[in-house]
């Protein structure tokens, strides 16, 4: 089959590789009909996530048709059309039983690696480095899905691939980011980053009852999407005085919740902190650049929540923890418990309450995935989201 393989920083290639096969009784094989490039794939593309190896197949947002199931699978049959969550969960361990699916104890065969770095291992993920299990990803014609009786959700034929594809990651991720904000009537939510997750966090914050949402970015096209489709008020942070403007827009209170939908490769305006991070990551003294997180903590109003759906992988420096303490902030973060949101969010899509496909800007055949990565990284041609069809 054809698959997108990583070979180094900014070097991804379409290769012909062996087809996947059933390895465990609870596996299924899915023929991929649509897959997307995630913002977090760009961290892999840039080579800032450790333990990726040349030849690894990327991709964790995908859906398709079941073509084969393992001996223990009774809930799925060949021919079923499913969306697959990017987090892999067994459904039986302590964390899974309380709905913390992305913290599954039993889905990362390389848990020892994650334990060395993080103390304990979270769940395995598709196509997201050996630290997260070394699972082959879904930017391919076929993919092996472990614990297929727990993850994949069947989707009705009346909905198009693009309408349901984002149940695999970014819609639940944006939704959980907003849910983590504990939104009350009248609340103002500020969202850093108007990429697909940020845009869906804007929409989700309104769905959860926010009075106002303020979206922050520097790319005019993305700010326009947040304004026109997401109905957010917007700020281009390159215009300066971000914190002052947020204060003015909230009657001097500051936002009730701040969402960092940017993560470890924040650009930031020309601040001392941004240069400091850039130099330190070049010298390998730090791994993550965190302009967005610093601003979110500083901007957040007293007693507020900082919600972090953006990916961080390593050590942070100069985090204003004193500000977070002084203002009594709550910080919530982590990989999305995708399984928890599949049915309720599918229901919202079916009811027409939201159509997440508004984030799609480019549609390419899988063969052109390397172009898709480059366009998405460089944000050329107003690129916000690339959907690939094998």
């Amino acid at each position, binding site marked *: 089959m054809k698959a997108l*393989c990583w070979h180094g920083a900014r070097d991804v290639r379409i290769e012909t*590789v062996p087809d996947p*096969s059933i390895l*465990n009784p609870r596996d299924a094989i899915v023929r991929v009909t649509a897959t997307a490039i995630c913002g977090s794939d760009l961290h892999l593309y840039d080579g800032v996530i450790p333990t990726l190896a040349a030849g690894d197949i990327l991709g964790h947002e995908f859906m398709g048709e079941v073509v084969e199931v393992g001996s223990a699978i009774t809930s799925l049959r060949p021919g079923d059309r499913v969306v697959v969550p990017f987090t892999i969960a*067994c459904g039986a361990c302590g964390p899974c039983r309380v709905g913390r699916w992305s913290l599954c104890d*039993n889905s990362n*065969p390389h848990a020892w690696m994650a334990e060395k770095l993080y103390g304990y291992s979270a769940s395995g993920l598709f196509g997201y480095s050996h630290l997260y299990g*070394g699972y082959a990803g879904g930017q391919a014609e076929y993919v092996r899905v472990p614990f297929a009786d727990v993850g994949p959700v069947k989707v009705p034929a009346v909905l198009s691939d693009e309408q349901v594809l984002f149940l695999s990651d970014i819609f639940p991720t944006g939704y959980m980011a907003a849910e983590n904000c504990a939104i009350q009537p009248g609340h103002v939510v500020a969202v850093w980053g108007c990429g697909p997750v940020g845009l869906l966090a804007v929409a989700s914050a309104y769905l959860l009852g926010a009075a106002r949402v303020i979206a922050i970015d520097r790319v005019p096209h993305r700010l326009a999407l947040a304004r026109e489709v997401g109905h957010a008020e917007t700020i281009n942070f390159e215009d300066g005085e971000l914190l002052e403007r947020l204060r003015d827009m909230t009657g001097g209170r500051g936002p009730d919740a701040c969402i960092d939908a940017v993560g470890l490769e924040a650009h930031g305006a020309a601040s001392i902190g941004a240069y400091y991070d850039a130099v330190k990551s070049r010298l390998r003294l730090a791994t993550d650049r965190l302009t967005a997180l610093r601003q979110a903590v500083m901007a957040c109003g007293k007693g507020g929540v900082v919600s972090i759906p953006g990916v961080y992988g390593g050590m942070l420096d100069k985090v204003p923890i004193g500000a977070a303490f002084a203002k009594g902030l709550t910080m919530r973060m982590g990989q999305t418990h995708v399984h928890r949101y599949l049915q309720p969010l599918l229901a919202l899509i079916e009811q027409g309450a939201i159509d997440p496909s508004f984030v799609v800007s480019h549609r390419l055949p899988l063969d052109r995935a390397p172009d898709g990565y480059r366009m998405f990284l460089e944000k050329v041609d107003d690129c916000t989201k690339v959907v690939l069809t094998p």
Partner: protein
Amino acid sequence: MHVSRNMEGWEQTISILAGVALVAVAIKRRKPFGGAATAGVGLVLRGASGYCPVNAAIGRRPHARRRDDTRTALGGPRGIHLRESVTIARPPADVFAAWRDPATLARLMPHVERIETTGAGRTHWVMRGPAGITLEWDAETIAEVEPERIAWRTLPGAAVASAGSVQFRPFGEAGTEVHVTLQYDPPGGKAGAALAWLWGDSPHSQLREDLRRFKAVLEAGEAPTATGQPAGHRSAAFRAAREALT
């Protein structure tokens, strides 16, 4: 010359460390072939082999007692002690029953080739050691309290004397905390174990992985794997590393 081990494990460790220090000093002083260096190399060899000519001359034989008897080999502070624990979302009775089944254990430990039941509370173990060596031994259950505790030890004649116990403590609604302690007297004493650790074959991480698989099989019905999945062109270094790990 008949060379057999006549040093305690701690003596070997000190001998190796002192030898390395002497060699380091000699190199720093730019006298890599002087007396200090020679003495240093001697101490390292003495520590690594476990044979001390002085002990031989004065007839000191600390291992005159039987090294394959678990009580003498593992009594007090002797031997290597390992502790590891894991929480399993199944009641103690289930976890106890799974542990008692030799087939479960053999399936979970990739280095164990087979476990045969040879009598009441007795088992025969066959394990693949490093470099293709096969290790075999007999073990007996010395305590069994259902569903709380199992303890065992190797019988005389074992290449590696070992003893261990596992406790199953109820956790929450229907969970179990599994606490394992393991003691063994490795070939070459603690120095041998330290060198094995340096070479990367850590018994502790092996125990942790075995328990991890035990948990996964009990909870999820299978242990996760990514071995055998497709991939694009791998580098020579990646293939070599994978070869070394399997």
